[in-house]
């Protein structure tokens, strides 16, 4: 038996503890979300009718199955508020991801063309904001965008506007916040594929007479597609369920699904409806999630 296979055996045992942990704290909880999404709202603590009580025997289980209801789901698909929230979440996520790609690509491209020494520095500079608190970075923008904030002061001083512009509580502010927060997530996978690319390929295309635009669209961009895919998924999926950024920067007249879920849970104390909203969100995101899982696995395991 090869040394590699002998090493593999104890390595497998290392999986036991994290496996059990993730099963208990990541997988099993979804069962509870599903269960509570099917139960009735009750004014109690916890605020839902228990659906299953395994201690009460078979008859009780049968009765419980009879009491299961899809009312919460019916409510979610018939109430415009929720339908709009899902549509808005998807629209915002698609728009924001497109903006991120357009802004992130040139930055990643610039990084990949730096001398190797500087590439490491640029990489650290892009990662550092990712380590810095998400909430604080959004808050920093409130400082700038508020009515008498820095941005309006500068615009007024330059006589570009005659009176303060309303920036906060607008969709523009929200998009700005999303792009700002997720930019490192877009840049890093793009940079990873662009840096690995053989520069000779671009040079060859140029030597053969391709103008710079053609070099980019026929050589560089197609070769960077794996990075584009990873970056897009890494941004799109969490943005769909985003709560903090729209809550602090966007207006309150149209909500994203993360906000309605939060409202149902914390303000209305309607746990069953919040759970049903989470289940639908999960179903919407299932395909991109599985895709992301495959990308991530390929990237980490097939070297």
């Amino acid at each position, binding site marked *: 038996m090869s040394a590699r296979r002998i*090493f593999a055996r104890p390595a497998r045992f290392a999986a036991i503890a994290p496996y059990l942990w993730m099963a208990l704290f990541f997988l099993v909880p979804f069962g*509870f979300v599903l269960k509570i999404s099917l139960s009735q709202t009750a004014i109690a603590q916890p605020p839902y009718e228990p659906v299953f009580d395994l201690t009460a025997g078979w008859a009780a289980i049968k009765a419980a199955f009879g009491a299961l209801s899809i009312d919460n789901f019916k409510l979610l698909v018939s109430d415009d508020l929720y339908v709009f929230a899902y549509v808005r979440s998807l629209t915002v996520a698609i728009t924001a991801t497109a903006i991120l790609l357009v802004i992130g690509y*040139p930055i990643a491209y610039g990084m990949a063309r730096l001398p190797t020494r500087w590439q490491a520095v640029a990489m650290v500079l892009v990662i550092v904001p990712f380590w810095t608190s998400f*909430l604080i970075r959004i808050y920093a923008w409130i400082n700038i965008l508020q009515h008498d904030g820095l941005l309006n002061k500068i615009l007024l001083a330059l006589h570009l506007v005659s009176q303060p512009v309303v920036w906060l509580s607008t969709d523009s502010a929200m998009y700005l916040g999303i792009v700002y927060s997720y*930019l490192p997530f877009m840049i890093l996978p793009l940079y990873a594929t662009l840096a690995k690319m053989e520069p000779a390929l671009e040079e060859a295309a140029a030597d053969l007479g391709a103008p710079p635009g053609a070099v980019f669209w026929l050589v560089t961009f197609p070769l960077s597609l794996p990075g584009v895919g990873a970056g897009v998924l890494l941004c799109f999926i969490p943005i769909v369920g985003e709560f903090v950024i729209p809550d602090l920067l966007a207006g309150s007249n149209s909500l994203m699904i993360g906000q309605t879920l939060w409202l149902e849970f914390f303000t209305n104390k309607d746990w069953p409806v919040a759970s049903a909203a989470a289940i639908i969100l999960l179903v919407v995101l299932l395909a991109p999630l599985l895709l992301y899982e495959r990308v991530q696995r390929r990237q980490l395991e097939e070297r």
Partner: protein
Amino acid sequence: MRKLARLSRFNVASLALGLAFLYLPILILVIYSFNASRLVTVWGGWSLRWYREFFNDGAMIEAAWMSLRVAVASASIATVLGTLAAVALSRGEGFRGRTLFSGMLYAPLVMPEVITGLSLLLLFVALNAERGFWTVTIAHTTLTMCFVAVVVQSRLGSLDRSLEEAAMDLGCNPVRAFLLVTLPLIAPAIVAGWMLAFTLSLDDLVIASFTTGPGSATLPIRIYSEVRLGVKPEINAICTLVIGLIAIVIVIASLASKLSSSQGESAAPL
């Protein structure tokens, strides 16, 4: 023969603008935290007034202390579990349930936090667990161990496996070979993983809001409820302190990885 310029003016401009975009807002926040004026936007000279205010704010201090305890505890547990998971995934070859295992580890990296938070809360309620320090710690461990696993796994993937194999050919058993050869080599990634877990936990608002109980708010929860009421200079000071703490953590992490690895290939956070 025409060669493409390695670094065009467009490249430099987009890099500079991109980095300015990432850093300017934070810089402005830090500067305003030293503003003496009560009005956030009026510059009243340099002052440490808002830092004093923070250190006299009992509720804020209590929340900061809670956040620090949760971050240290959850980062430590997450580092152990995440490292084990990384070793199993990159050295365990095939084992039963491997696909499910990697799926459970990669999904939380992108899963919207409202879903993770809500599902964990429902579990804690079903288990009748008292909500507070431990429930938040468990929730943060679940999230951050996935990040640790990815960081350590990418380091393990770039290691030369013949080193382990040589140790075993020379008579080490697998466990000894791991402890004496592999572990020292992946130590920088493990340190970086702990730091990343620590900062993620310190930062989290959504999952903590779901899983904490009455009377045990974390710092982001307190900051969030203040921010909703508008900008306050004291919050600028707190945020600057958090940024300073995280900066120290990053410096330590990068020093650790520089000290023990000259072969480059620093572990990316994702």
